Each structure stands twice: as C-alpha cells, then as structure tokens.
C-alpha cells in the first residue's frame, strides 16, 4: 500500500541518515564520535548565515531597482495619459470642425442642387434642353392650288399665339425655338434658326393640352393665323397629344462671344418667363 504523499513527506521530514547512523553507532559498527563534532556544523551554519544574508541583501537591492522601474513606468503612464488627453481634446476639436464642415457641405450641396434646378428651368425656357411632355401638334400645309404658300409671318403669328396660349416649349419641324430664333423667308423658303424648312410645317408645342388649343384660338396671333389660313386656303390640322407624347430636341448651343453677365447678377433667375 502506498503512503499518501503528504503523509510520506511528513514522516520523512527528518533525514533518515541521522537514524541510520545512530542505529549503526548503537550496533557498534559506527566510527567513533569526532573529537570536535560541532566545528564542521558551525562552519556549515556560517555558510548558511552567509547565504541567507546574501539573499536578503540581493532581494533588497533588487527591490530598489524594481521600485525605480515601477516609478519610471508610472511616469511613462502619466505622460502617455497626458498625451491621450491632448489627443482627446484634439478629437473634440476636429469633430466640431468636421460637423461645421459637414453643415457647410450640405448647405453648398443644397445650393448646387438649387442652381442646377434653376439652370435646367432656364435651359427649358430658353430652348437649350430637350424636353418631353403633353401638348399640341399643329400641321400647316401649303394650299393645294394657287400661287400662295405659307410664309414666315404666318408661322410667326402661329408661334406667337402658342406662346400667348401658354406653351412652354415650341419646335418647328424639329427646330427648337429659342431666344435667338428667327423665322424668316429667304425667297419662297421659310428658314428657322437659319435652317431651310420644307413643308408641311409641323409646329409642336408643349403645354397643357386641355387649354392650349382653345387659348390658341382665343389669342391675337392664333386668331390672325386662322384668319389667314382660311383666306389663303392653308391646310391646318391641330392635334392634342397627351401623356408625354411630344419630345422636343434641344437647340444647338452657340457660345456667347460678346454678351457678358451684367453685375450684380440676379439670383432670382427663375422669374425668367417667356
């Protein structure tokens, strides 16, 4: 049966050699007791004292260096904490300036969007942006017999009548009418935007299809045009087009060579109406 470890250690806490030697001596086999038995023990005890004192001194010495190391570590921690604090305040500052910059950015973005919208409206009004929508299509043909033909003044009256009736964009045979458009005869041929057109003349106008046709007949230009058409026998066909059925192309943009913006520029350009 094995002895439990703790019991074993406790039982053998005294070196068995002492017992062996004592037994041997009692049996008479041992050597004679030394004359001065305590001298060697004293030397060993002196060695023991030396070792103990060395360990004590060493530990206290090390503790001083440990203390120094700890102190320098604490110093470093404090320094790093200060750095961390200053970084925190910097984070706060940067965050604040970031927020301010974001606000500015959103304001600038809103302004840019507004300017873009305004530009598009101006482009639609002036004819430099292709548009689509409901409206009317007026087809004008030359009279089938006789010398007369549709002239620039006739088309000008029709176009003026359409503008008066509330048309938002007008094109003749695919030529978009802009602020710089001229409708002129050159000989028998009608020119729009300096491009010769061939009859029939298809005038497309975007506007409210429920009112555009009636308002056209009510307007001064429209009434005059209808009168002329009856007088000379033009073929006039007016059709309502609903649901984005009309698509008007953009006019060719021409660079401004002489015109400059008059200072101060007006921000309320959306008031620009035909």
């Amino acid at each position, binding site marked *: 049966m094995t002895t439990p470890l703790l019991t074993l250690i406790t039982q*053998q806490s005294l*070196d068995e050699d002492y017992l062996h030697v*004592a037994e041997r001596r009692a049996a008479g086999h041992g050597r004679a007791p030394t004359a001065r038995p*305590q001298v060697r023990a004293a030397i*060993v*005890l002196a060695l023991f*004292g030396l070792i103990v004192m060395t*360990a004590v001194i060493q*530990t206290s010495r090390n503790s001083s260096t440990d203390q120094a190391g700890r102190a320098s570590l604490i110093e470093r921690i404090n320094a790093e904490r200060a750095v961390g604090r200053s970084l925190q305040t910097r984070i706060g500052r940067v965050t604040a300036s970031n927020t301010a910059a974001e606000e500015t950015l959103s304001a600038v973005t809103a302004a840019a969007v507004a300017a873009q919208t305004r530009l598009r409206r101006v482009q639609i009004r002036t004819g430099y942006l292709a548009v689509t929508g409901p409206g009317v299509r007026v087809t004008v043909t030359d009279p089938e017999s006789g010398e007369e033909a549709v002239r620039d003044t006739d088309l000008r009256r029709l176009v003026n009548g359409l503008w008066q009736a509330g048309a938002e964009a007008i094109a003749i045979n695919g030529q978009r009418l802009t602020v710089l458009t001229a409708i002129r005869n050159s000989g028998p041929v009608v020119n729009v935007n300096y491009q010769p057109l061939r009859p029939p003349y298809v005038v497309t106008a975007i506007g409210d299809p429920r009112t555009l046709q009636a308002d056209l007949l009510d307007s001064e230009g429209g009434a005059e045009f209808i009168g002329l058409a009856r007088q000379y026998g033009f073929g006039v066909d007016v059709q309502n087009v609903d649901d984005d059925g009309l698509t008007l192309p953009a006019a060719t943009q021409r660079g401004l060579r002489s015109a400059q913006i008059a200072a101060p520029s007006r921000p309320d350009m959306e008031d620009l109406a035909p």
Partner: protein
Amino acid sequence: MIALLGLLVGVVVGLVAQPDVPLSLQPYLPIAVVAALDAVFGGFRAFLDGIFDDKVFVVSFLSNVVIAAAIVWVGDKLGVGGQLSTGVIVVLGIRIFSNVAAIRRHLFHA
C-alpha cells in the same frame, strides 16, 4: 554553542562583505536558502533527538542546496521553472513545518 557562534559569524560576514551573486545564479538563491533552512531545522531536530551527526548534517545541507537549485535550473531550461520551484517550495515547506513541530514538542514538551 560553537554552532550558534558560526551562524553569527556567517551573518556578520554576509552583512560586511555583501557578496555579489552572479546574475545567472540569482533566481536560484531563494530556493537554495529554503533548502538550507530545511537542512538546518532537520539538523536541529536530530540534535534534540540526540542522534545528531555532523557529517550527515554537512552532507544533507550541501546536497539539499545543490539539488534544490539544480531542480529549478533544469525546470528553467525546460520552461517549467515556475512550477518546479513551486513544487520544491511546497515539499520543503511541509518538511520545515513538521520539523519545527517536532522541535517545539522537544522544547516545550507539548
């Protein structure tokens, strides 16, 4: 009496000379001290039992110190120095306690 004198001489010499332990031996000094303590208490108990033998004492003292330090050194080489020194300290501590208990029984008859 001579033994106590020797102990005193050793302490004084240690205090005065303040010997430097090589850095490589420093980790093993505390364990050597504990081992020596065990040998000293064992010898004192044997002395009180009346079976003290100075040769056994010398041998047990030296071997205790050397073996304890060597075990921890080997443990350090194997990477289990901490565990091994804990084991050595536990065994030596139990021995010291039981020896001191025996000494106490001898001195106070209790």
